[in-house]
Each structure stands twice: as C-alpha cells, then as structure tokens.
C-alpha cells in the first residue's frame, strides 16, 4: 500500500491530497486490507465544507454504493478519489490504487473517434486494439467497433464507456450515477451487465447513485453520506439483494430512505416497484 500512496500523491493531485497529514502516517491509517482508505477527508467550496472529516474504506473487489441527497458531497468524494478535484481546497488522506477508472453519468465518448478508438483511448501496446475488441464483445457490442458514437443509443454509449473503463483492468472503478440518464428498462439491463462484469473482473467499485433500489440491487455494501460524513454503512446480504419482494429488502429500503430523510410511506411503492421491473427484465 505504501507504494500506492506514493504513486497517487505524486501522480494525480499534487498538494490537495495529503495536506495537513504528516507524511508516513498514511500506511498505518484505516482498516487493514482496504484497497481504498480515506481518513479525515475535508473538502470545502469557499466556506462551505462539503466533506467534513470523512472516513471510508473499501476492500479489494468490494462493491460499495454511495447514497446521499443532492449536495451531500457524493460527487465531491468521487472526484477526490479520481484525482479530478484540482481547484478544491481540502485536507485529509486518500489511499487509492494506481489503476482507477471512472464512468461518468454521460458516456463521454469523443464524437470524432469511432467506438473502438474510444475504448482504446490512451492505451498503448501492440495488443491494445485486440483488448479493445474483447472489451466491446464483453459489453455485447461486438461488430459495432467502427460505428460513430452518435449512431449509438444512450444505453449502447454507456456500454462503450463501461468497456473503456474495464479494458484498463482497474483496481478501483468509480461510477458517478452512470445510469441516471437511461430509461428504466435499459437501466435494468445495465445493472445486470455491470454486476456480471464486476464479478468477472473483481475491481473495487464505488457507485454514486441517488436511487435506493439501484444501490441495494448492485452493491455488497451501501453507504449513506450526510453532512459530509458517512451517516450509515449497511452491508447487503445476497439474500436481500436477490429477492426484491422479501421483507428484508423492504426493511433495508425503508431504513436507507429514512437515512436520506424520506418518509418511507411517502415513497409510493407503485411509482417504483422493483418486482414489476424485474419481471420485465
């Protein structure tokens, strides 16, 4: 882990990362064995502290969903982990692996590159194109290598974006509401695809979402962010995740909604009925 710390603090965000923490403290902090360890993380925009002493660790291969109201700092945390927060001031410590991939809410494909070119963007090595083709086949887009991004549907574009992330074999996959812009049916297919891909590649995943059901269905552990700290940290057993109709599922859903400040009776079950959606999928 010591090597990772060094690599990241020099490589991605100089300055912002370890300010306020004595060098050398890093490797000893946090839960042992975590791929990601965040300690005492503070991020502020002006006077407003968005993250305030946040602690979080993610084990290798663990799928963590991060829930929170809008403005709770979900994206700020994700951007801090991805090293994308150049203009944000803050202190605290982040240990993250060297290989981090990000999936954005928009597929963010370069419109002037064909699908395969987008997947292998920045990859080097003689087998880059072959790896790109294999990744496209994995997300079910075999034969679309030469298509332009504008020719794809929203779901297909997001699958290309997944392929672009996974072809790099990341140790940590960061996803910022990746399915937020997709329609409900496409979203369910993407859930299945993402779970399958994660089971095969076993990256640690941090999925930012505002959708409680998405969090329960996909994650091994759901974390709720509130007031810049982790307000709840709930493991999701496989028994819960795979049985939408079960009382355990409903109980977990209610608990998470309550943590997010929503009265579970307010949330109309007919408006979002996971059981109905599953039968469609």
């Amino acid at each position, binding site marked *: 882990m010591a090597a990772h710390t060094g690599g990241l603090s020099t490589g991605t965000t100089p300055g912002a990362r370890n300010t306020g923490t004595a060098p050398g403290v890093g490797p000893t902090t946090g839960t042992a064995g975590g791929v990601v360890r965040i300690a005492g993380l503070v991020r502020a925009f002006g006077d407003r502290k968005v993250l305030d002493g946040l602690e979080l660790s993610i084990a290798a291969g663990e799928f963590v969903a991060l829930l929170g109201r809008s403005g709770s700092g979900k994206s700020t945390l994700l951007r801090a982990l*991805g*090293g*994308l927060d150049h203009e944000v001031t803050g202190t605290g410590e982040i240990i993250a692996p060297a290989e*981090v*991939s*990000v999936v*954005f809410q*928009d597929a*963010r494909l*370069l*419109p*002037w*590159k*064909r699908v395969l070119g987008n997947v292998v*963007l*920045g990859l080097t090595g003689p087998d880059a194109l072959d790896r790109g083709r294999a990744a496209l086949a994995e997300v079910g887009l075999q034969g679309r290598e030469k298509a*332009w*991004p*504008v*020719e794809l549907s929203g779901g297909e574009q997001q699958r290309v974006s997944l392929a*672009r992330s996974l072809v*790099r074999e990341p140790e940590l996959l960061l996803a910022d509401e990746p399915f937020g812009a997709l329609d409900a049916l496409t979203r369910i297919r993407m859930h299945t695809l993402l779970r399958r891909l994660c089971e095969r590649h076993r990256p640690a995943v941090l999925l930012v979402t505002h959708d409680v059901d998405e969090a329960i269905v996909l994650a091994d552990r759901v974390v709720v962010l509130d007031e810049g700290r982790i307000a709840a940290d709930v493991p999701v057993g496989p028994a819960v995740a795979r049985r939408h109709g079960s009382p355990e599922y409903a109980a977990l859903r209610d608990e998470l909604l309550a943590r997010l400040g929503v009265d579970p009776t307010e949330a109309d079950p007919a408006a979002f009925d996971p059981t109905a959606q599953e039968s469609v999928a």
Partner: protein
Amino acid sequence: MSAHAPTLTKTKTPVTAAEAASTAAAPGGPRRRRLGPGRPIRYGWALGPALLLAVWAAGSAAGLIDPRNLSAPWTVVSTAGDLIADGRLQSNLATSAQRALLGLLFGVAAGLALAVVSGLSRLGEGVIDGPVQIKRAIPSLALIPLLILWFGIGESMKVITIALGVFVPIYIHTHNGLRTIDNRYAELAETVRLSRPQFLRHVVLPGALPGFLLGMRFAVTAAWLALVVVEQVNATSGIGYMMELARTYGQTDIIIVGLVVYGLLGLVSDGLVRLVERRALSWRRTLAG
C-alpha cells in the same frame, strides 16, 4: 373553412380510425392548408439564373441593351473562346491562381500557428489575441498603401495582402474551436491518463477541426476578394489586370469573361473546402443522414 371540418366532427361524434383514415386519404377531400413552403422543385435553384440569362439574351437580341454597356451573351462566349485560343486567359488565370494559392498558404499557416499558440496557452493568448483583434478591426485592403511603401508593387506585396486577409478568419475560427472544446473531454483525458501530446492529438486538434474548416471557407473567399483588389490596383498580369485593361478600351465582353472566371473560381474552391469538410467531419454528419 371546410378545412376544419374533420376536427370538429371528431370532437362531436367519435370517428373510428378506419373512417378517419379514409377521410384523410380521399382525393379532393377536406384538407388542412399547408403553411410551409411546400415540396422542393427539381432544379429549382437554376430558375433565377436561367431567367436572368434569358432576359439578358432577349434584351441584347432586341437591341434594348447597348453593347457598350453590356455585351450580348454570345459575344461573351466567343470572346472567351478567342481569349483561350490565343492563351491570354490561361496565362492570366495561372498568374492569379498562383497569387491566391500562395497567399492562402501563408495566411492559413500563420493563422493556424497563432491560433494554436493562443488557444493552448494563457500567455500566448495574452500576447497574440490583442494584436489580432486590432488587425481584425482594420480591413486588410486599407493596409495596401502601407504595404506598397514597404514591399513595393511586386508579387510579394500582393501575396502578403492576400495572406493578411486570409489569416484572420483562420485564426478566429480555429481559436474559437480550440477554446470551446468541452471541458468534460479534458477531464476524460485525465482519467484515461493521456499525456499532453496525446491530449493534443486525440482531443484538442480533432475538436478544433470543425472551427478550422469553417475558417477555411471564409479564408478562401477572403483570398479571392483580396486578389481582385490587388490585381486591379497595381498589376501587369492576372485576371484583374485583364479586366482593368478591358475597361480602358471599353471591352465589356472581356470584363464579363473575367467576372465569370472569378465566380467559377469562388464556387469551385468553396466546393472543394466543403468536400474536405464532409470527409473530415463524417462523424458529425451521420445524424443528418
């Protein structure tokens, strides 16, 4: 107001889908009045020019148009034939084309280089953008007296005048293209860890290409415009000189041949740039079909 009838019946008594379809399909049945311009006419674009040509020809044949003001179309055609036969048109055209191409070449190179420097570095922008904006406010043609004093009345003055007219649109549109590249792509480039040269090659340059090509279309027009002026002010060869000489002798037929040549050059060069645009930007065209 019979056109509104179907809607009214529909609201009063429920009409079945089949009935509604048969009403709509019935020839001569009530229809809504179309408000758009209607279907395109085949070869419609040629209508105006053909009409103009017909009026010109009829006027000349009837003797209503004085040949001292405007030669008849057939005179223009035969004059063009003569000019080609004795080689005057070709040699003047070659001279003109060479000036325009050289000016275009230098202008595009300068505009592109300045745009890249000022688009990619804040310091470069501070140094370059101001002077270019000042230059933009001064029409290139107004600089001709100064350019003549500096460079004489030879070829270099002509090429420099054309280049000065060309570099401004190239600079403006390429710079704008560079600056309006979506910041989200820069963020993406960071997450996939592109190096700075890779970022330039895969993101910045392709992103600025549409802007550059738009600038190119303006630049080509600017090149021909500047060419016309420099050739009519101070020249001993070229299409403009040929026309200027014809003015001295009152040869309207030769003037019109020159105008037609300028027009064709403008059309052909704009068509070429558009062809390149279509090829290079096919990723954008796919939605339009």
